[in-house]
């Protein structure tokens, strides 16, 4: 077998393996490139006698033609092959990388914070382990009030307890003595409730406070109306019902028109057309004077609302414990 037959044999076997354009290019370079195997043979022509040259040259050219033709055919075959590949099944599901999600309570709280922020409230925080002074006494809760009972409140010792509301943050902020104050305090609170569909011993509240010269009950009504309209919809109406809280006077429970039945009455609002949202009122003068603020000069309002309550109503969640179970099938929906 001549050296050119061997070369052709090698070429053919390599060509068999070529499956894409890049490999085909590599093969072309390997045989026909500047330093290619066949090119080498052409370069060696110069060393031959003039008598042998023409025959050898013709033979080389024939081989070159043959290789080029084979490469071209292969290229055509590759291109044709590419086009004749089965088309992608567009009905297959797309690849969806995992998406992270905020907890529904975090989403509701963020919404609440952003609305109040837009109305000029500043976000404040405070400790969750509080003293009886901040949690009760400074909020005008009498010594005998049942909320202080060990049956209702978790204590660490005689003085320290897990805050039962976010209201003590009011006191801590007022104590700084920099008035006016316009703040909200979101956070965890604790009550000794047995877990059931509507209770969990840990839950979340947002406390609001505005103390300034000449703050009135009318300001409270206007602020909460604006807030609930932003939260639940422009058509929302609110209702203030007299109530009793130790740290506000006058005190009111705030109801909003049921957004599920537009106030017509349904199962969720117990046919009343109203949904109870939380307490509010004018800061009791005892609370102000307790932190050294003259209630004749300054007045203010305070309110509270429950994040779980809003989330349950808004998303139609009927069991508060779902928020604490963290089942991904639940969390994925928000």
């Amino acid at each position: 077998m001549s050296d050119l037959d061997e070369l052709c044999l090698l070429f053919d076997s390599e060509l068999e393996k070529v499956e894409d354009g890049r490999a085909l290019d590599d093969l072309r370079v390997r045989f026909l490139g500047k330093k290619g195997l066949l090119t080498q043979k052409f370069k060696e022509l110069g060393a031959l006698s003039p008598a042998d040259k023409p025959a050898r040259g013709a033979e080389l050219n024939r081989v070159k033609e043959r290789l080029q033709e084979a490469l071209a055919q292969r290229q055509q075959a590759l291109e044709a092959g590419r086009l004749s590949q089965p088309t992608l099944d567009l009905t297959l599901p797309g690849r969806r990388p995992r998406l992270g999600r905020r907890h529904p309570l975090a989403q509701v709280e963020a919404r609440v914070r952003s609305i109040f922020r837009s109305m000029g409230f500043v976000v404040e925080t405070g400790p969750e382990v509080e003293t009886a002074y901040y949690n009760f006494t400074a909020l005008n809760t009498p010594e005998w009030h049942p909320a202080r009972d060990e049956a209702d409140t978790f204590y660490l010792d005689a003085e320290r307890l897990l805050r039962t509301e976010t209201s003590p943050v009011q006191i801590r902020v007022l104590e700084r003595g920099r008035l006016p104050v316009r703040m909200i305090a979101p956070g965890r609170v604790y009550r000794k409730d047995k877990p059931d569909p509507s209770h969990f011993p840990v839950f979340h509240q947002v406390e609001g406070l505005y103390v300034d010269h000449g703050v009135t009950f009318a300001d409270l009504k206007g602020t909460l109306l604006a807030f609930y309209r932003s939260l639940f919809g422009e058509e929302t109406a609110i209702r203030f019902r007299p109530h009793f809280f130790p740290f506000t006077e006058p005190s009111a429970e705030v109801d909003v028109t049921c957004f599920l039945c537009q106030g017509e009455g349904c199962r969720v609002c117990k046919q009343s057309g109203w949904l109870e949202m939380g307490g509010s009122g004018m800061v009791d003068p005892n609370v102000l004077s307790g932190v050294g603020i003259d209630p004749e000069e300054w007045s203010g309002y305070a309110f509270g609302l429950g994040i779980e309550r809003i989330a349950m109503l808004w998303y139609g969640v009927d069991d508060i414990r779902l928020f604490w179970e963290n089942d991904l099938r639940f969390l994925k929906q928000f």
Partner: protein
Amino acid sequence: MRISYLWLKDFLNFQLSPFQVADIVTMAGLEVEGVAPVGPELEGIVVGHVLEARKHPNADKLSLCRVDLGDKTLEVVCGAPNVATGQKVAVIEAGTTLPDGRLIEARPVRGVVSHGMICSGRELMLSEDAEGILVLDPSLTPGALLRDVIGPRDWSLDLEITLNRPDCLSHQGVAREIAAALRVPLKLQKTVVDESGPPVDALTSIEVREPELCPRYSARLIRGVKIGPSPDWMRWRLEAAGLRSINNVVDVTNYVLLEMGHPMHAFDFQRLEGRRIVVRRAETGEKFTTLDGQERILDDRMLLICDAQRGVALAGVMGGSNSEITEETTDLLLESAYFDPINTRRTSRLLGLSTDSSKRFERGADPNATVRALDRAAELILQLAGGEVAQGVADVYPRAIEPPRIDLRPARVQEILGLKVPKVEISDHLVRLGCQVAINEPAHSLTVRPPTWRPDLEREIDLIEEVARLHGYDHIPTAEQARSPLNVPHVAADAFPERLADLLTREGFTQVYTSSLLSAREVEIPGYPAAARIKNPASEDTAYLRNGLLPGLLKVAAYNLHRGQPDLALFEIGRVFAAGDDGLREWDALTGLLAGARNAGLWDQPEQAVDFLDLKGHVQTMLSEILLDKPELFYYHIEHGTGDALEVRRGERSLGWLEQVHPAVAARFEVDVPVFAFEFSLPELAEASPGRLVYRPFSKFPSLQRDLAFVLPEEAAVGPLLEEIRSAGGPHLAGTELFDVYRGVQAGPGMKSIAVRLAFQSPERTLTDAEADAAVEAIVTMMAQAHGARLRS
């Protein structure tokens, strides 16, 4: 407090439905928990049409009636004088039972079989009228069920009375609120007591040794009563208010309690030693058996009502079994007192004994209502149990309790409410509540004396609330504009945690909320500080405050793993607590957890299990996003978890750690797959994170790339080597990127090969190949000399 709708009508003339009443009291501040019908079920009672009523052939006083029941006609014998042809009546067919349980059967009456009965209001327990049959609306359809066409006997309104309103724990008090809201008069009945007996002082005496704890003690004596059952009206009213009937005398004391709100107690006078009352403190350790049969051990601050010898009632809380009313009782001493609220509360709480009586005394009864309550009770007892009332009231009231005088400035009302209410209107509102009001013309103020049944009205602000309430919260304007102080903080308290939460969400982590209350076992995590214990936990499972967030996340991981959801990327931001000698510390922590596949959701790829480097990558991304990056940060190997653990420090401060959770710890939480977790302290991160991002210019000249592969001993740590390459590469080495770590034949046994891609770039000019090659040469030399690394060809 359950309120009977009919009972309210004793005090008010109104044409309101029970639901309208509920709306009114709701807006007055008494929360309505429910409105429920009260009365018999009326099972099987139907409307009948009397087609014909004629005389019974064998009895003058009886009628023979043919009654149309819609689908049939019934022959019934009726004894009522008022039955007549054409009436619509209530009929019970034979084989059915009356509300009182009596079975009606078909039976002959004077020779004629009666197949049922035409009912009276009494038989249906709808009214006390037993004289004649109940005649119904003529428009009713025969055969209709009676309970569908007539209302119930009464309605019960379940009210939630707030702690400050003891006066509303009675029908009279609730009626007063309705009257004030509707601006109609409250009807108060006059009580008339026929005092036919000898003077009360001749028969008994009252001695109060503790006037502080018992400011007033009033009593009446009634002799010769006959204990028996109460009449229906009394039973029905008690039932509507949620009480069971006991006997006529006890029922009267309960009735007066529910009507006027004043607790009373009836003693069997003959069982009182010495026939007298002594009010004193108990002795420490003194034993006393209350009406419920329980023996109580008292202390010397508890007030005891005694006879000449021994205790007979726990003041304001509960009577004693030694003097209670029995079937044989004939003579009564009726107690109507005013006890100190705080002391009553203390006794009730210490003994764990809360009663209808203690609830009212501890919130504040009306000291000036004792005699009116006695009179009302005496009147009712004479009516229901007979007897003879001794003349006069034994009344020990050494210092009369007067209402306070409160100045109320109309200007202040406007300052608080944002609404101008005229003086006269203010006065009018308060008078409707029972206040005495004097308008002081020159001083522009009012002097208000609230009634003694309103112990909650002590200050000007208390009166302003009443004005607001009666004026109607609805009539206070709603502000349309807000004035806001212009203090906007540079960094909001919620900004940093929000930023981290959003960052992790982008990284594919889902936020969870877990409980702050854990068990002793759950807070035992290696490396965690000691956890604080709650003094009065609800259970041992929730007795400790969480000292980190990992336990909660492991619980969530277990929950989801056991429900076929193995691919987890979770985080929580929340408060954690550490107990220490110097007190309790609390701070916000951020914890993340990874388990399962990293490429979940990419369905056509083989699943790749997460490992430590996934965790580290997320942490590095997160930290660099809050502008924390090398060279400020150092990662240290620490003894934690499985040993695959790093602590992240900045200078001497520890910011947090990342680890593969030790399988033994994970197993305690029923997690049996590899889990990776990090935990950071939010305040430490916030403190370390620079507040301001500063732009770093980048070069606009092209970069030159060189790929190098080094063969190194297996044990060589790559991280520090990359640092060394960076410093050996000279000023133009702009990027050093690891792109492969290879172990295998080509590297040789005990060796590994690392491949790095180097990028050379100058901010000022285009670099030459020679410059890049020189830098590469320096790196290769350093690697060979310092680490014995050879270049892989």
